[in-house]
C-alpha cells in the first residue's frame, strides 16, 4: 500500500454522492425496505403478544426468563375455583432474548414486530408519581394484544426448548 499520485480531479468524484439515495429513512413517514416484509425483519424479536385463549398459564416462560421479567398474574378463577394465571412482561427488565417464546408449550406467547412502546404521562404528576406510573405502564398486560404483526415465534422456526 503506497501513497500513489492522486488525480487533480479526485475531489470531484465525491460529487457522485449527490445523485445517490440517502442511507437513512425518515422513520414514521418512510419504512425500511430491506426485508421481504417492509419494516423490521420477519422474525424480529419485538414486544410480546399473547393469545389468551391458547395460554394455559403453566409458568414455563417465567421459569426460563433470564432476567425475571415475567410475572404470573392472577386474572380470575375457573369453575373448580383455581386461579387462572397469565404472564405479565416487564419491559424494564426484558432483554428480548425470546427464550420465553421458545419454551411456550402451546405456542400462545409470540413476539411481534413492534418495538416502540409509548407511555402517556400526566403533566400534573409529581416526579415520584410519574416514576411509579411508568413502572406500572411499561408492561405487557394479559389483556393487551399486538397480534396483528407477528415476528419471532416457534411456528416459523423449529421448536428449541421444551
Amino acid at each position, binding site marked *: 500500500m503506497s*501513497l500513489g499520485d492522486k488525480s487533480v480531479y*479526485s475531489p470531484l468524484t465525491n460529487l457522485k454522492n449527490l445523485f445517490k439515495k440517502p442511507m437513512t429513512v425518515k422513520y414514521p413517514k418512510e419504512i425500511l425496505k430491506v426485508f421481504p416484509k417492509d419494516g423490521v425483519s420477519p422474525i424480529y424479536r419485538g414486544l410480546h403478544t399473547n393469545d389468551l385463549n391458547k395460554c394455559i398459564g403453566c409458568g414455563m416462560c417465567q421459569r426460563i426468563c433470564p*432476567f425475571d421479567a415475567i410475572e404470573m398474574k392472577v386474572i380470575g378463577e375457573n369453575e373448580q375455583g383455581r386461579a387462572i394465571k397469565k404472564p405479565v412482561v416487564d419491559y424494564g427488565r426484558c432483554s428480548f432474548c*425470546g427464550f420465553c417464546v421458545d419454551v411456550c408449550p402451546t405456542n400462545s406467547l409470540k*413476539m411481534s414486530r413492534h418495538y416502540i412502546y409509548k407511555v402517556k404521562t400526566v403533566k400534573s404528576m409529581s416526579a415520584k408519581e410519574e416514576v411509579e406510573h411508568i413502572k406500572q405502564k411499561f408492561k405487557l398486560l394479559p389483556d393487551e394484544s399486538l397480534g396483528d404483526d407477528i415476528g419471532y415465534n416457534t411456528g416459523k422456526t*423449529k421448536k428449541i*426448548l*421444551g
Partner: protein
Amino acid sequence: MMDSPSYMLSKIAEKDNLTVYELFFGPNHPGMHGNFGYVLEMIGTEIVKVRPNAGHLHRGFEKLMEQKLWVQNIALVPRICVADPDPNEVAYCTAIEKILRVDIPDRAKFLRTITLEMSRLSSFLMGMGALAAAVGLYTAMNIMTADRDLILDLFEWLTGARVYHMFSIPGGVRNDLPDGFVERLYKVLDHLEKRLIEYDKLLFENPIIHKRLKGLGYVSKEDAVKYGLTGPNLRASGNPYDVRVDDPYAAYPYLDVRVITQEGGDALTRAIQIRLEFEETINLIRRALKTMPEGEIRLNLGNLSALKVPKGEAYAKVESSKGEFGYYVVSDGGMKPYRVAVRGPSLPAGLLLAQKHLPKMKIDDVAAWMASLAICPPDIDK
C-alpha cells in the same frame, strides 16, 4: 520548537510549580471506547506515568453466570463484547458441548462459522471507523458505520435482533437460514469488496494516517508473545498464530483459513493488518457458503431449560476480531455453572502494554493508540 504548544505549556507550568498534572482520559472522553479510563500524569502534553482506572464497567458477569441456568446465560454472554458478540456465545456453547462430549451437526458448525465471520466483519468496520475517528477522518467513519448497518440487517433477518443475536445454543443454533438470505449475503459481500477501494482512498492511503500512526506503539515479535497479545495485534508483529488454524473449532477444520502476518508491529501495520484480514474474511465467508452442507441444525439435548451438564471442566477458545476469547467453564453436575471465567482479548494490551507504551507519548496519540490495538474495555472490566 520554542513556540510549540507543548513547550509553552510546560513553561507556564514550571512558573506556577505545576510541572506534573493529572489528567483523566476517560470514562467521559470522546477518544475512549466505553466506560474505562486512564489516569495520566502529564508534563505539558507529554505523558509521564499512567494508571489504568478500571471498575466503572464492572457488571459481575462471572458471578452472575453462576446464579443462572445454563441456557439463560446465553442471553448474558454477548453483553461482554458489544461490537463482536458472537464469539462469546460460540465459546460458551463450545465449552458446554466439550463437557457434554457431544458433536454438533455439520450445518450448525457452518452456521456458527458464518455468523462468527459476519460478526468479525462488523467489528472490523467499527474498529477501522474508530481508528479513522481517532485521527479526525470522520468521513471514513461515517461510511463504515453505514456499511456495518448492512451486516446488522442480515443479522436481524437471520436471528431476529441486530446486536445481541443469542443465536448459538448448546447443541447447535436457533434457526436456519431464511429463504433468499444467501443471495443477499453475497450481494453485501460484493458491495463491501467494492467499498474497499473507497476505504483505501479515505483511510489507508491517506497521508494523515501514515504520518500519525507510523512508529506509534511499536511491539516487537518477542514482546507481543511476552505480553500475551493475540489476534491481529500478534500477527502484525510477525507471529503466525491464529486459533482458527492452530486449534480449530466450529467449521474451520473444513475451511482453508489463510493466516496473514506482517512484520512491523507499529500502529500503521496493525491498521493495515485489519484491512487485509477484512478482505480475507469476505473470501472466507464465500468459501463457507459454497461448502455448507444440508442437514440438521441442532442436536436434541432434551429440554434445555432443564439441561444438566455432567461434572467436569473445559476451556474453549474462539478467534474474535480482537484476539482470543476464552471461556473456562466448570460444572458440578447441576443445573447451573459452578464457575465461568472469561479471558478477554483486550486485557493484556489495555492494562499491561499501556503502562509500557503510554509514558513519553503525546496526549493526542492515546486515542489512536487505543484504536490501533482494538482495546475494548468491556472485556477488560467484565
